[in-house]
């Protein structure tokens, strides 16, 4: 029987190794798998390359992972965030690398990674510093830059409802990078608010088909990052 459900966030992230490329879902706090990230902090894997739209807020979640010096390099579109000092401080000290990618190119590179498309052309960033050093070509009179797929070792994703096959649905704008990140990693680890029986999710409304998911862990009441930040909480707790 196929059963992708694991019992704990610790078990879910246990295989993440030093130096891994890890995709982390979320746009700001919406869709950020905060409990999985905290499990990864406990787990301790380091020298990670993390792909995520932002760099986290306060001293919890992604910001805490960075603060704990587990991240060697960030690939993101918007590393400046309200209530964030962790990434900026390390960046100013040259203690963390940054690859800045336009948000749509970031999404498309991840989608390409999942879809077996190694490279594609896009009009985004043409004539800007972010296209410098990249191959470009004119197609039907317009200039495009070539971008390569992003493929990862692991994805950490937050969803709303899941079943044992790994079929997923999401909640509102917390969907964002989740579905494409599920496709682009060798191992996709998902935290869900609720687990249901196969068939309880209407086959017409599944957003992420189970084939893209490796492990599912139930986190019934996930923490709200903004609330933790407002309370000036830290992870690990001190």
């Amino acid at each position, binding site marked *: 029987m196929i059963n992708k459900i694991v019992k704990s966030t610790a078990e879910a992230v246990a295989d993440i190794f030093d130096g891994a490329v890890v995709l982390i879902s979320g746009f*700001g706090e919406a869709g950020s798998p905060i409990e999985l990230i905290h499990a990864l902090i406990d787990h301790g894997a380091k020298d990670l390359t993390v792909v995520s739209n932002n760099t986290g807020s306060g001293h919890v979640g992604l910001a805490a992972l960075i603060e704990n010096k587990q991240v060697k390099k960030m690939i993101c579109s918007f590393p400046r965030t309200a209530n964030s000092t962790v990434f900026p401080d390390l960046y100013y000290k040259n203690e963390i690398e940054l690859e*800045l990618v*336009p*948000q749509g190119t970031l*999404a498309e590179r991840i989608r390409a990674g999942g879809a077996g498309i190694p490279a594609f052309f896009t009009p985004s960033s*043409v004539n800007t510093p972010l296209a410098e050093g990249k191959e470009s070509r004119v197609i039907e009179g317009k200039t495009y830059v070539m971008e390569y797929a992003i493929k990862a070792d692991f994805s950490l994703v937050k969803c709303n409802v899941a079943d044992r096959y790994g079929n997923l649905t999401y909640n*509102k704008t917390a*969907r964002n990078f989740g579905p494409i990140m599920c496709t682009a990693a060798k191992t996709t680890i998902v935290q869900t608010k609720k687990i249901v029986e196969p068939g309880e999710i209407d086959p017409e409304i599944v957003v992420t088909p189970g084939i893209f998911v490796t492990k599912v862990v139930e986190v019934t009441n996930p923490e709200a990052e903004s609330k933790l930040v407002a309370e000036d909480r830290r992870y690990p707790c001190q």
Partner: protein
Amino acid sequence: MPITEKKIGWDRNQMAQKAAFDIPDGSYVNLGIGMPELVSGFVPEGREVIYHTENGLLGMGQVPENGKEDPELINAGKKCITAIPGACFFHHADSFTMIRGSHIDICVLGAMQVSQEGDLANWSTGKPGAIPAVGGAMDLVAGVKTIFVITQHNTKNGDPKINEKCTYPLTGKGVVNRIYTNLAILDVTDNGLFVRELAPEVTFEYLQKNTGAKLNQY
């Protein structure tokens, strides 16, 4: 550099209203963070405009009532919003299909600098040590059919933001179609910048004095 001696021209809401007036009925519109967000408050009577937010919602509504905020229902500025009846959610690759694939009709963006040829700089000062952050701006200017810029005409120091060339790193080259400032509305054309409308009390000469590029009159 010329300095705006006294407070004349439009205020932020009036600028937003001017931009809103130029958005046709039935348009799909993406609003940048900051002043562009005000535009949605001024849709003229009888028009229906659908707002796209690149983090995965078509049909963004007004801000939620107090206590009804949902941290998983936010806009690109990470503020809590609502969804209208007839809205839909989608993932990031689909969202940028709408943007890059030229399905969005109009995008209203802020600016640090605009050139007379419609080059836009709005993501980085290029200063060493500054953390660059681009978000979806480069995708929006590359893909959206019409780009409106809404910005103060001059910096806080009084320097013109509209110049012959941009000195900051570009967001896109030749992408801006129209500029709404506190002093005027300008069209970017193949023949240069044309003044579409002057704010009350603003003369063409005054506007020219506060602009770093040659202005033309229709």
